[in-house]
């Protein structure tokens, strides 16, 4: 079908550009992910991992999810289930899903449903819990579990009802295009997109019949949660990248994710295979009283946003957070974004960045170019405390280990007949 790798790569990139994600619904995870109905199952971020390999915050999140599901009454009880192997662990990516930080997702958690109308595939992601003590950073106190219940019983149903008032769901590309011109890069900063989302759903929510007490709570939560859109972006990027990777040729990176232990990538030509290397620890700015010594290694499926071309790949779009790149300012961010174009095959005309003189966001990370130049994709990320339950302690940037890309390039070359 394609004569060369360049041609295949261009075809994958064309599919990314053509992708049209729509937010359709918010539903319990088990209603759309069949695997969650088969006994005690938890989804996690990143490539496959065992419970004993998980870092403390992700184990903590597992505990929180197990308590939320009511698998046990006490921490000890559920920890026993987890260590004994009674709980099956599946990467989110294997079931059309993505999860932030630990990415721990269980049967009864509410998930966003995004459909890529171009390719007809769907992707799922839990909703953003806000800041402070939250499951994604490994907290599992009563407060955390209670919030998960509220999200399942109140936030989910209200948003679901609101979204259903829209004929085709909510067009995500439109929100992304708007918010990128308002200074979001959709990983570190989502405030404009979150407000734009609230602007779209608020009229629908207030016009709902019933939910009288819940409406106020939901709107208050959305108004308070600056990063709410991040999870919508993640599910959308996942839906678009999964549509694009239906083409199983070429060297475009179709997923990047981490599980606190390993960083994993996929490339189009190698289908579902993961290429992994040890994760790095993010560099960044810390909240008062914390330092890099307290930081947890890199985790989360949120790097799907960078795979799509936003987040760290579009650093220049968000001048307000550029200083997370390092101690520098605007021009450091500009240099970072310019450098990212050297490992991508094109720019995406759907999302012009005003602060980049309306150049489109990066399109299609070519694993060959990463290996050739040694330039690694830059990922914007929150930084978790390495101890479970203590939450976020800073934010910054992180890069994948080069091993992932080297392994992927070598494996694909061998698949095509290359002998060392």
């Amino acid at each position, binding site marked *: *079908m*394609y*004569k*060369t*790798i360049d*041609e*295949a790569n261009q075809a994958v990139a064309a599919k990314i550009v053509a992708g049209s994600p729509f937010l359709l619904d918010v539903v319990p995870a088990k209603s759309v992910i069949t695997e969650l109905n088969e006994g005690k199952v938890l989804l996690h971020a990143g490539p496959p991992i065992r419970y004993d390999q998980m870092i403390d915050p992700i184990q903590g999140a597992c505990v929180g999810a197990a308590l939320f599901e009511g698998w046990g009454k006490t921490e000890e009880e559920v920890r026993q289930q987890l260590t004994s192997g009674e709980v099956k662990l599946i990467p989110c990516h294997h079931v059309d899903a993505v999860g932030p930080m630990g990415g721990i997702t269980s049967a009864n958690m509410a998930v966003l449903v995004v459909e890529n109308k171009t390719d007809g595939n769907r992707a799922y992601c839990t909703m953003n819990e806000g*800041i*402070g003590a939250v499951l994604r950073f490994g907290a599992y106190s009563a407060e955390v579990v209670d919030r998960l219940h509220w999200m399942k019983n109140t936030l989910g149903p209200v948003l679901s009802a609101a979204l259903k008032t829209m004929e085709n769901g909510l067009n995500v590309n439109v929100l992304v295009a708007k918010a990128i011109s308002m200074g979001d890069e959709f990983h570190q900063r989502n405030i404009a997109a979150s407000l734009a989302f609230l602007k779209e759903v608020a009229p629908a929510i207030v016009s709902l019949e019933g939910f009288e007490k819940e409406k106020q709570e939901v709107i208050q939560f959305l108004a308070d949660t600056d990063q709410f859109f991040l999870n919508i972006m993640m599910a959308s990027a996942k839906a678009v990248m999964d549509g694009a990777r239906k083409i199983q*040729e070429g*060297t475009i990176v179709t997923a990047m994710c981490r599980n606190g232990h390993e960083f994993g990538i996929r490339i189009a030509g190698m289908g579902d295979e993961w290429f992994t290397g040890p994760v790095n620890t993010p560099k960044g*700015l*810390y*909240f*008062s*009283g*914390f330092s890099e010594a307290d930081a947890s290694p890199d985790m989360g499926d949120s790097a799907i946003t960078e795979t799509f071309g936003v987040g760290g790949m579009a650093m220049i779009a968000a001048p*307000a*957070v550029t*200083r*997370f790149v390092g*101690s*520098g*300012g*605007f*021009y*450091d961010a500009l*240099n970072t974004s*310019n*450098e990212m*174009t*050297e490992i991508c095959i094109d720019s995406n005309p759907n999302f012009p960045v005003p602060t980049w003189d309306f150049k489109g966001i990066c399109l299609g990370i070519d694993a*060959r*170019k990463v*290996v*050739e*130049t*040694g*330039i690694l994709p830059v990922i914007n990320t929150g930084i978790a405390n390495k101890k479970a339950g*203590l939450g976020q302690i*800073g934010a910054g940037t992180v890069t994948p280990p*080069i091993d992932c890309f*080297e392994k992927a*390039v*070598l494996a*694909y*070359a061998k698949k*095509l*007949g*290359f002998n*060392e």
Partner: protein
Amino acid sequence: MLHTIIQKNSYQDSIVLMLLTNRLNTLAGVTKASVMMGTPANKDIFKTGGLYTSELEEASSNDMAIVLQIDGKDEQLIQDVLNTIDEFLAEQSKGGNDKGTETVKTWDKALELGEDAHVAIFSIPGTHAALEIEHALNEGKHVFCFSDNVALKDEVRLKQMAHEKGLLLMGPDCGTGIINGIPVAFTNAVRKGSIGVVGASGTGIQEVTTLIHKLGGGVTNAIGTGGRDLKAEVGGITLKDSVATLENDPDTKVIVVISKPPAPSVRDEVLDLLRSSSKPVVTIFLGEEPTDHEENLYRAYTLEEAAEIAVQLMHGKEVVEKNTSLEDPCYQFAAGQTGIKGLYSGGTLAYEAAMLMKRSLGLKDEKEAEAGFILKDGVHEIIDLGDDIYTQGKPHPMIDPSKRQEMLAQAADDPTTAVILLDDVLGYGSHENMAKELAPTIKEIKEKAASAGRELVVIATIVGTDEDPQNMAEQKKILTEAGTILCNSNAQAVKLALIILGHPLTLPERKVLPKKSSGKATVIPSKEMMRLLTNDAFINIGLRSFSDAITSHNGKAIQFDWQPVAGGNVTLQKALQFLNKAELN
């Protein structure tokens, strides 16, 4: 103890405050510091961080709260902290950080940004240079190759390839160039003018172009060819193409060719080409003793003379050999003090000194000097400190003074030494103040010799112009104050040394003979070659300082931070090559 400062109604962005926290943590005496807006959530963070105080309760969301962990209640320290905060916030609000130059790491990007750049400059490890030069030539770029250690056979192949494409390959091992008035690599800031220079030697070009500048002239282009261009194997490909280009350059009125004597097989061809030029040509084949000129083809003896003749020709004047006579300052030396020691950073200057000394002192020519010496004959030594033997694991002596300082002391301790010759090469790439580095050593060795009853004469030449990034006048002042005699050119410095030792050198007068017929038609340079003359954009692959020199002369430089493909991993390089060529079904 914990000390709390609340600054009322002083809102700052959290990133600014995190950066400020980092700054405060670097202050001596501060064990731990934390600055945040006084929001309820932040007060919780103060608690988890172990920095909570009851005073924080007073802080509102619009107040900046600072908590310091310090030893005791040090009022001075607290004041320092407050000053630091004010300074930091003032700095932050200024904005406008350095733009920096855009740098690239791939050819694709370099070519995209450097569409209008017709020259690629290389300063990368020699083992990788051949492949990358080929890449640049295939993309239609002229190449200026500063890198050395390129195999001769690669040089021959690449120069032939360049010639066929109508492109110029300057180098390998090309240290100096001026293209369209823009300095490239180790080059002086020389006035733009009407003299075109082609040279196989870096410091040779520097000496001639700076002397042209000092004499009021200027340069259109100075094209380096690399030291091996006139070898039989290479056949002068670059030199010939360069001369043809300058011949057709409307701004160039006079052409100067600088080289060691060409290989016999190349010599006639080169001279024929020069004879066929419609413009006056000056040649300096260092090491040859010219006995005559030809009409419109002048043969200089020294680099200085080449510059003088070129400037005379530029003014349309009759060529007169100046042969400036120098006065003997009449030094009193101790018995046995008869030697000249030359400690050069410029290889061609060392070579010129050796040549003039051999002639004046009647030293044997045929004997190859031992490694590390350009000349070693009894009490006389001329050393090129830029030779590989001295630069192993060390920067070039134009950048690093340490080897020369050491050698100066050694030469001075030798009781036979009467005169020491030095060069101070200015320009882009060179040390920012070499005079200041050498002056203390010069003073010291002169005093030491004096205390031992010996007169020690140090003569130096500054190769530079008043427009160079170093301050020429200051260099002169520093060296003079250290007791150095300064000469206008290297040739004069050597001549003065010879006079002091009682061996005055006069250069032979040369008659102008009629031009020998060349029978050759003028070579027409390619379109690409002519485009070089107006080129003002460069892709600089390697040393960043080369980009700076270009941009400071209003040229455009695309900085290509080169690294070996796949970090030099051969398997991955092969896999990439395989994938780039792979055909999919």
